[in-house]
């Protein structure tokens, strides 16, 4: 049994640890062994905390033995995206500019996980400053998709999604600004939730685009996502944009029937433009929802086609302002330069990678004198209109469904020289951030071994509805599979997987 503890979900682990049926130390050992087996192929982590994780697990077991009340995630190994501060550890955002930075505090969402008894196994790879859809923009390493090692895991939370899919941890935190939880969840065949803007405190998340960023969970089941959301959600005095809306009992309502609910299909999404495998999966997903008693109706979001344009103007404008703080003065990399201006220019030249520079340039341009109204102003207008259209649609339906991504995971290197093509892969996810809504990415099928995913979009703070429909869909689909052969490939199996060494040459020393 103990060899296979890494296959357990978060809820199973916490329930058994709290009941004294399972030792947190055994769970952590099993996950560490699994991580050691798969990590040479997958490269999900930038840093691992093996010894610290063992120490924390012993502490959980000691508290249990002493009769203390344990939290809802007692003994559950978790992975954290490396743009979340954890006191005393680095927080690189996969950028050279933050090499040497040590977090002086812990993000609220992480603090709440720790308080619930979760055990961090490490910090995961991402596209630099969460800017990207493939993890290829990391300054340090390229993470691989556990389902097919020559494919990207998605991004920017690709390391977190890959860690969960590979069985290293049952649970991870990511952040989502335009799809950065949902798209990697889709590519890696796991469940990912972008909560409503304000549902989870952003305190301690390194800011990319402050009006869009949200922290959320990735796991192998909707129940584990529900359990985690209940832990991390809720108002936080340290984040003025966090909401005082009461936190629902997500797990308590998740098994309720869904018959009679109404799901909207967006008229402006032309299914004929989807890749054939995605289209077939999308149509069978709608059939599955119908079989569950969910009524499918058409809704209209006329501004949806302009969303990517609006998103990239707004997100990059905010990013250009947020990333101005990385100037070599107070933290991170400082170039040895004689004048203050040269210090800024040299530190940022040496510290930022090409995608970050591209986005800062775009944002600076969109906010610059003479262009503000033409770009930022118009993008905000589209955003307002999109919010109204979503609101009107939600008067007719309880949720809206789309594919999570227009394609399955693409090959490593395929889009790296074509930024616009990479941006367009966010077509179904970015609108949700612009409107501040919650959305759940759910495994729905596969195309030649690569996972496909359905996105459920909800009204503000209606995460419980999404999880309930997601749970019913998951029951109808069957438990999500794990990539077969991963780890075994390392023991010399010749199943055709690419197990060549990962390039970690950029890893910080």
């Amino acid at each position: 049994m103990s060899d296979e503890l890494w296959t357990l979900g978060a809820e199973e682990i916490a329930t058994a640890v709290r009941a004294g049926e399972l030792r947190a130390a055994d769970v952590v050992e099993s996950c560490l062994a699994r991580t050691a087996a798969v990590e040479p192929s997958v490269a999900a982590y930038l840093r691992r905390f093996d010894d610290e994780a063992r120490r924390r697990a012993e502490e959980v077991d000691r508290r249990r033995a002493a009769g203390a009340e344990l939290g809802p995630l007692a003994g559950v190994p978790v992975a954290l995206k490396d743009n979340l501060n954890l006191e005393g550890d680095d927080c690189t955002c996969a950028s050279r500019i933050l090499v040497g930075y040590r977090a002086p505090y812990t993000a609220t969402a992480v603090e709440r996980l720790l308080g619930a008894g979760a055990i961090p196994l490490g910090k995961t790879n991402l596209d630099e400053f969460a800017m990207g859809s493939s993890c290829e923009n990391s300054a340090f390493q390229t993470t691989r998709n556990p389902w097919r090692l020559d494919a990207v895991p998605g991004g920017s939370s690709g390391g977190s999604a890959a860690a969960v899919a590979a069985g290293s941890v049952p649970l991870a935190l990511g952040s989502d600004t335009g799809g950065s939880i949902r798209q990697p969840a889709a590519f890696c065949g796991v469940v990912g939730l972008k909560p409503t803007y304000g549902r989870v405190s952003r305190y301690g998340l390194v800011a990319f685009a402050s009006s869009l960023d949200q922290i959320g969970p990735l796991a192998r089941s909707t129940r584990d996502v529900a359990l985690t959301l209940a832990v991390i959600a809720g108002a936080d005095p340290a984040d003025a944009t966090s909401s005082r809306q009461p936190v629902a009992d997500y797990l308590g309502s998740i098994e309720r029937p869904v018959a009679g609910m109404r799901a909207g299909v967006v008229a402006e999404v032309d299914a004929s433009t989807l890749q054939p495998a995605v289209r077939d999966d999308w149509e069978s997903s709608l059939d599955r929802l119908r079989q569950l008693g969910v009524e499918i109706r058409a809704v209209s979001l006329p501004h949806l086609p302009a969303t990517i344009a609006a998103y990239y103007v707004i997100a990059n404008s905010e990013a250009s302002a947020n990333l101005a703080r990385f100037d070599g003065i107070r933290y991170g990399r400082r170039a040895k330069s004689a004048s203050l201006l040269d210090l800024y220019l040299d530190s940022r030249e040496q510290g930022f990678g090409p995608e970050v520079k591209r986005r800062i340039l775009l944002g600076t341009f969109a906010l610059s004198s003479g262009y503000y109204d033409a770009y930022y102003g118009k993008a905000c207008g589209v955003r307002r209109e999109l919010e109204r259209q979503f609101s009107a649609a939600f008067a007719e339906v309880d949720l809206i469904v789309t594919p999570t991504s227009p394609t399955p995971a693409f090959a490593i290197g395929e889009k790296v020289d074509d930024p616009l093509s990479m941006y367009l892969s966010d077509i179904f996810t970015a609108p949700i951030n612009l409107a501040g809504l919650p959305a759940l990415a759910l495994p729905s099928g596969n195309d030649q071994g690569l996972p496909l995913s359905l996105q459920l979009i909800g009204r503000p703070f209606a995460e419980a509805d999404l999880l309930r429909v997601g749970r019913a869909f998951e029951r109808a689909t069957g438990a999500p599979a794990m990539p077969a052969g991963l780890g075994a490939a390392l023991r010399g199996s010749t199943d055709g997987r690419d197990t060549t060494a990962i390039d970690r040459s950029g890893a910080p020393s």
Partner: protein
Amino acid sequence: MSLSVDEVRRIALLARLRLSAEEERTFAPQLGQILDYVAQLDRYAGADTAPEETPALEADDAPAPSMSREALLRNAPAVLDVFVLVPQVKVTSDE
């Protein structure tokens, strides 16, 4: 809309970024292509461009402990006593 290398250089200075000659040559057409795509906003944008106002949580106006100066200064690349060291900011004319 095409951007010249000079325009890219001007934006880079505004953004306090130094680009290599190769980056300038790569970014100019890429940014132009992205701005062409963004131009479709013209067809959609309405008159109402004001950002949405969302009510923020108001903190109680009560003193509370904050992070220690030592903890914050520990990340600074150069420190003198309780100050972050930077290159000379004001250059006087007789220097």
